[in-house]
Structure formats: structure tokens, C-alpha cells
């Protein structure tokens, strides 16, 4: 096994809002090794998207980011704008949830792919366009020579997401961050996109950070999983280990009565757990899940559990 490509340590994100500061991510630590797919799962509002955005400095100015993000030995938190720009799109690339709105409506898809190549690799207009056609073929778009001149609205949602993927892998990045890449798509289309991602990962050996709330996608693609709750990582494990023996009561709740989770992409979603993800002005010195936890004991409300042996819990399952 090679070392970590991406090493996140004690990452915290706070937003300034009209009603005071809002903590979105609290001391999150993650590692992604070469060629690995790490899935970050959790309910909406748990901070998984904010975590993903903060990695390459894509959060708005109202966000304060603390901690450390090392990409191949280079510190990204606090790096100057020029450094971040040269890393974005070339070493860390993103795929977003909404293929319908993530492409600029007034430029052709070929132009939008070429842009990345021209900025980072200094390709000429013609060379970039030729490469764009190859990339479109790579992500499985039929008659790519013709499609390269299409505007986004002329393509279906699935095709647009393939364009987004082509754009993301254009410069052969070290880490691909896919934020809910299939959520906005029809179930039938989702399988195709997952196939493309799997093929690319095998072919290019790119590490992938996969943000999702879909356990089917996790089982399909991920090697390792980090479960997030209310801005904290509550459990990390190998994917099979997690599905077989969840340790945190929250993970157990998510998996619920879904033993065959992951057989079919998109058919199994997270289980409903009673209660809501809390909104936090400040992270309390307690377990944030304690209110909703069936296994809560006294210490859970007075002291925050730290991540040890893959789980942050005072009273984990199977103990």
C-alpha cells in the first residue's frame, strides 16, 4: 500500500451568519491513499459537502476554515490563491450534484472542457478541442465529434454529468471529488455514471472522494467509508467491515433493516432515524448524537467522544 495522497487533519469550518457563527464541520480528519475510493456518508446537513468544498478552498468568504489539508505533501489550507488555482482542476477535480446547472449555458461543452486543458496544460485551441473529443469518448458519449459542439441544454442530464466527468479527469488529477454525482439523476442513468467512474478509477488510478447519502453507491464503488454526523466523523471503516459490523449506533441506524444494502445502485437509501440533525452555533462538549441515540449513557451528554479504533462513541454496538 502506498502512502496518503490526501491527508485531512482537524478540519473545522465555521460560517458567519446574520444570527451569529454557525459550525458546519468540527475537527474532521480523513486519509485517502493512492487509488482509493473514500466515501463520506451522512444525512443532508451533516457537513459532508462543506468538507468537500473546503478541501480546495471553494467555500464562500463567510466561511472560516481551520486545520490542515495536505495534498501530496502540499498544505492547501491557507495557501495563496494562485497555488490553489493551479491545483484546482489539475490535481484536485470536482464533479457536482447538479449536472443541469453546473455547466455554463452559453458555451459549448467542448469549449468548457478545452478551457481546463488550455489553462493547466497550455494546449492550443485545436489541440484542446481534439483532446476534448477523446475525453468525451472516454466517458462514453456517442458521436463525440458532433457532441463536442453542443450546448449543455441540448444534452440529457446523464450526458451532462458525463461531460462534467470528462472535464474533471481532463488533466489526470490525483484526487477526484465527486459530490453526490448520481443523486440528481434517474435510477437507470445512475448505473451508467457509476460504471464510468469505476472504469476511470481502474484505468487512471485516480483517488476518489465520494460524497453521498446513497448506501447503494457506497457499496458499489467505495473501498473505505467515513460516516459524518452534525459536522463530525463518527465512524470510519473498510466498506465490508462497516456493512457487516457497524460500531456507532448512528451507523447502525443508517444501515437499519437493510442487510442487502448495495446490491442495486440507488435502490437503498439511508434509513430514517427519529429526530433531526442539530443546528450548532458551537460544537458542544458532548456527543451530538446523544439526543437521538438509543444507546446513550450518562457520559454521552457531558463529554465528547473522540475517534478511536474507527469509532467516536462511548457505548458502541457489539460491546
Amino acid at each position, binding site marked *: 500500500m502506498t502512502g496518503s495522497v490526501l491527508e485531512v487533519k482537524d478540519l473545522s469550518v465555521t*460560517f458567519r*451568519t*446574520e*444570527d451569529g457563527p*454557525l459550525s*458546519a464541520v468540527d475537527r474532521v480528519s480523513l486519509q485517502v491513499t493512492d487509488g482509493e475510493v473514500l466515501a463520506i456518508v451522512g444525512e*443532508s*446537513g451533516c*457537513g*459532508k*459537502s*462543506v468538507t468537500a*468544498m473546503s478541501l480546495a*478552498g*471553494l*467555500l*464562500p*468568504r463567510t*466561511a472560516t476554515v481551520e486545520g490542515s489539508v495536505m495534498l501530496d505533501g502540499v498544505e492547501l489550507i491557507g495557501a495563496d490563491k494562485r497555488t490553489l488555482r493551479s491545483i484546482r482542476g489539475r490535481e484536485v477535480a470536482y464533479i*457536482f*450534484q447538479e449536472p443541469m446547472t453546473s455547466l455554463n449555458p452559453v458555451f459549448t461543452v467542448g469549449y468548457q472542457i478545452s478551457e481546463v486543458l488550455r489553462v493547466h496544460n497550455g494546449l492550443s485551441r485545436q489541440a484542446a478541442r481534439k483532446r476534448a473529443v477523446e475525453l468525451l469518448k472516454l466517458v462514453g458519449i456517442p458521436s463525440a465529434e458532433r457532441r463536442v459542439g453542443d450546448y449543455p441544454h441540448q444534452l440529457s442530464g446523464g450526458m451532462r454529468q458525463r461531460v462534467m466527468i470528462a472535464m474533471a479527469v481532463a488533466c489526470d488529477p490525483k484526487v477526484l471529488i465527486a*459530490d453526490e454525482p448520481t443523486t440528481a439523476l434517474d435510477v437507470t442513468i445512475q448505473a451508467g455514471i457509476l460504471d464510468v467512474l469505476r472504469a476511470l478509477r481502474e484505468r487512471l488510478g485516480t483517488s476518489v472522494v465520494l460524497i453521498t447519502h446513497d448506501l447503494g453507491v457506497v457499496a458499489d464503488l467505495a473501498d473505505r467509508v467515513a460516516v459524518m454526523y452534525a459536522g463530525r466523523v463518527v465512524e470510519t471503516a473498510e466498506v465490508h467491515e462497516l456493512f457487516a459490523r457497524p460500531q456507532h449506533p448512528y451507523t447502525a441506524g443508517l444501515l437499519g433493516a437493510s442487510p442487502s444494502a448495495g446490491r442495486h445502485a440507488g435502490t437503498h437509501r439511508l434509513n430514517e432515524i427519529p429526530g433531526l*440533525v442539530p*443546528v450548532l452555533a458551537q460544537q458542544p462538549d458532548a456527543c451530538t448524537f446523544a439526543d437521538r441515540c438509543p444507546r446513550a449513557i450518562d457520559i454521552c451528554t457531558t463529554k465528547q467522544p473522540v475517534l478511536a479504533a474507527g469509532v467516536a462513541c462511548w457505548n458502541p454496538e457489539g460491546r
Partner: protein
Amino acid sequence: MAVADLSTIPSAPVTSRGRKVVRRMLRNPLAIAGIVVLAIATAAAVFAPWLSPHEPTLTHLDRAFAPPGTAGHVLGSDDLGRDVLSRIMFGLRASLHVGLLAVATSLVVGVPLGLMAGYFRAIDALISRFTDLVLAFPFLILAVGLAAIRGASLGNAAIAIGIAQIPGVIRIVRSETLRLKSLDFVAAAIVDGAGDAWVLGRHILPNAASVIIVQATVAIPAAILGEAVLSFLGLGIQPPAPSLGTMLSDAQQFASRAPWAAVMPGVAIMLLTLAFNIVGDSLRDALDPKASRR
């Protein structure tokens, strides 16, 4: 200016809307300044007959071209020795009169048409032809036509400005009606068998009130500027009655000899419209902080 998906950031519970609007307004020092200026201007206009130091139309040829600061003429006098301050106070009357009359005209016609255009699909196209037609006549051309047919007067100027403002009112009320119509509580009222007039009057109009108020606060200063333009051209108020516009057109003749007579009325118009625009802007921001922040 990085951008992120903020939909995942939960929003805080909202306290009472009305109180929040007032609180936001009062937190903005510029808005307070605007309100103060409007209050002073309104008081000066309303109480002009009692407050003004001189008769606005009284000529004193022996006191012509008195510079500002002269005893009895704080802002100076014009070519006929009339007091500039007194004329400005009475001019403000004309400005506010036209501003309110014009906006009232546009609301009386525009609000019902906007409600109907948004609510009844069938007549939407008809009303939009009407707005296209009105838009084809710029306010000055309308005023020219109206002055040709009915003669130049303050009332006709107000009507011309009001007509020209109708399309804006229709457009805003229509889009607000469309938005409200799609909301659950209106749909529920319709399902419950409420009549169209009831739904429009009890559900849609009260909820559209805030956008109508904001529209009015931006329309009034526009109307005031319009009145000044028309009076300047001689298409509005008729001399010797004072208006800020006619004062400027008089002063144009002797501007290099008595620049104050040209500067003061313009400053008065500017302060008045600036105050209205500031109050309108901050009211809009306070009602919808998201829209202004975007």
C-alpha cells in the same frame, strides 16, 4: 469570492417578520437619514404657507439677485427679487403633489390589471398588449400629447407620469401574483371553493402589499424628477406658481449672474429624490435581505 452549495447550511428560526423589518431599517444609519430628510421636506411643503419667510410669488425688483445669506433671504433671491427659500418650499408642495398623484394613478390602474394578468391566464396576453402599447409612449411624449389635447397643467403632468408608470406596476404585481398563486395556502383556498375575488382580495393582495409599497417608493422619486422635467420645459405647472422645475428654467436665463438660483432648486430636488431612493432601497433590503445579499 468562492462559491459553494449553501443549501446544506441550515437556517436559523425566523423571529416576527414585521419587527425584523423595522429592526433592520433602524440598524441602517443611511435609512434613518433618508427618513429624516423626507420628514423635513414633507413638513416644509405642508406648512409652507405658515413657515415660508416670504410670499413665493411676491416680486421685489429692488431686492433682485440677493446672494445667499442676505438678511431675509437665506438662500438668496432671483431676478425678480423673489425669495428662493420660500419658492423652494412651495416648489416642494408641487413636487410631492405630483409624486403622490402620479403614483396613485399608476397604482389604481396598475394593481387591478396586474392582479388579473397574473391570476387569469385568459386575459394575460390582452393586458400585456396594453402594457406594450403604453410603453411605446415615453412619459415625455405622453405629456406632450396630453398638453396638446388638454393644455399644460400640473394635473396633466401628473396623469402623464402616472400613465407611464402603469406598465411597471402591472409587471411587478403580475409576477408576484403568479408566485403567490402557486403557494399552498392560495391553492388550499381555491380548493376550499373560495371565489376568485375573495382569493385575490383576501389572500393575494395583502401578501403582494410589500412589493407594491417598494414599487411606490421607487416610483415617487421618478415622478418627482418627471415633474421637474415637465415644468422645466413648460409642460407642467404654469407660472408664476413655483415648482422646482420652473425655478430652474427661469434661472437658466440669469445663471451666470445668480448661480444660487440655479443651484438651490436642483439641490432640493436631488436631496428629495435621493432620500426617497435610499428609503426605498433600505425598505426593500429589510423586507427581503436575501434578494439584496445575492
